[in-house]
């Protein structure tokens, strides 16, 4: 940029030299002037160069100013960047914290993982056990299913057997009674129509035939009633046991008004049970008390609720003939009696029937008694 024209010296037109000597001086002066002249040109050139330089510098200054603006912008940017940076640093910091936390977490996780692995290892062993147990269970389930099927089959067989029993009972009832009607009816016909041809012994025999036929009819009926108790469907209703006891008591008193029997029936005793069956059970118990007190001139029959041996049980008790407690276990068996027919008539199915009825209700029955000290029958209903 500073390359100016190379300075060259212009020699001025020589002027007449007055003297030689003076000419040397003259020469020297001229040369000096030339040099000066040259130098002035040179100076001019330099000045213009300087000017150019100044111009350039001037330009440079604007440039510099521009630069300064740019620099300021950059500084701003840098400043901005610095705040950004501190933010970043903060972020990085927290990130590091997170990473630190995470690494703790990671340790924990690794611990857990290790534990899980241990468990899994244990589990491998356990699994074998479990599989064994599983297999056994499956076998058991299979067995159970088998048993279930078996049970269903047995149940079906049972209900079929029950139906058969019912049909059997029905035909027993129908078919056995028919010939008995003939035996009794024609014996009676003989007694009436041929009385003049029969002596006293023959008449006595015919009477025995009749009473045997009638006794057999009673046996059949008792047997059927006993089986009916087991066969019929259980119906549960709220029952007033006290009222049932009272109605049985008054029936008995009406039938034998000459007997002096005091009834002590507790009021308000209730139960949820089958009305027909409970009536049958209570009638058997109270009738027994009525029958087994008949040898005494006066008697007392009681119906109530007791908490004596078992909580919340009912009882029917009397002060009659009682029974020998050694044979108490036989009381509830069918056709089992503790008294002879001569002492007291009966078939021995009454208590067996009661027993079945109480058991069908999920209850229990037991008796306490002693000879001539009366008897008390306790029962529960569920």
């Amino acid at each position, binding site marked *: 940029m500073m390359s100016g024209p190379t300075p060259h010296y212009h020699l001025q037109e020589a002027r007449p030299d007055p003297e030689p000597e003076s000419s040397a001086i003259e020469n020297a002066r001229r040369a000096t002037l030339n040099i000066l002249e040259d130098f002035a040109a040179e100076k001019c050139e330099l000045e213009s160069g300087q000017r150019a330089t100044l111009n350039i510098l001037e330009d440079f200054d604007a440039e510099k100013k521009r630069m300064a603006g740019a620099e300021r912008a950059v500084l701003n940017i840098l400043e901005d960047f610095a705040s950004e940076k501190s933010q970043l640093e903060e972020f990085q910091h927290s990130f590091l914290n997170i990473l630190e936390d995470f690494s703790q977490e990671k340790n924990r996780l690794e611990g857990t993982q290790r534990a899980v692995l241990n468990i899994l290892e244990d589990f491998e062993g356990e699994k074998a056990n479990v599989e064994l147990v599983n297999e056994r269970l499956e076998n058991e389930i299979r067995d159970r299913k088998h048993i279930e099927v078996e049970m269903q089959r047995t149940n079906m067989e049972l209900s079929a057997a029950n139906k058969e029993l019912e049909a059997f009972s029905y035909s027993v*009832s*129908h078919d056995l009674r028919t010939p008995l*009607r003939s035996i*009794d009816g024609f014996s009676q016909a003989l007694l009436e129509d041929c009385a003049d041809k029969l002596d006293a012994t023959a008449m006595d025999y015919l009477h025995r035939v009749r009473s045997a036929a009638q006794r057999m*009819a009673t046996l059949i009926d008792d047997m*059927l009633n006993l089986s009916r108790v087991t066969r019929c469907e259980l119906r549960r209703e709220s029952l007033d046991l006290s009222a049932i006891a009272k109605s049985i008591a008054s029936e008995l008193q009406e039938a034998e008004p000459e007997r002096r029997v005091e009834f002590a029936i507790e009021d308000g005793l209730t139960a949820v049970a089958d009305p027909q069956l409970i009536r049958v059970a209570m009638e058997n118990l109270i009738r027994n008390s009525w029958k087994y007190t008949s040898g005494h001139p006066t008697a007392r029959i009681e119906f109530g609720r007791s908490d004596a041996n078992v909580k919340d049980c009912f009882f029917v008790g009397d002060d009659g003939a009682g029974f020998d407690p050694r044979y108490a276990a036989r009381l509830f068996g069918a056709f089992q009696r503790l008294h002879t027919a001569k002492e007291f008539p009966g078939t021995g199915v009454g208590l067996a029937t009661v027993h079945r009825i109480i058991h069908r209700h999920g209850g229990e029955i037991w008796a306490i008694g002693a000879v001539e000290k009366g008897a008390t029958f306790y029962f529960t209903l569920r």
Partner: protein
Amino acid sequence: METKTILLVEDNADDEALTFRALMKNNISNQLVVARDGAEALDYLFATGKYSGRDVSLGPQVVLLDLNLPKVSGLEVLRQLRANERTKLLPVVILTSSNEDQDRLQGYDSGANSYVRKPVDFNQFVESVRQLGLYWLILNEQPPARR
């Protein structure tokens, strides 16, 4: 007095003889017609088969019906009687052998007017027939027969 027949539907000859005897003992002198199975009973009642042409205005006044019968059961005989306009009001007494039958029948409406259990004790049977005779042959007015 015009006497109408009593139809006894009974397959057992002994029971037939004893029923006849019990009726006689009660001085019930209506003619006794015996059908020995359910089909014969229906023939008599509807004047069909061997009874075709019978004058149905002559009764019966009452039917004594056993339940266990050959061919057509007692209950089926009763059902057909009740389904027929002419016989639907005819008094029918069912003779049962057991209490159980009686319970079973009383459980639903079989359309019978009463039930009598044939007791083993003949004297009791005579008494039952006496009460029956009183009720169905004397006290109970038959509705006029329709054709």
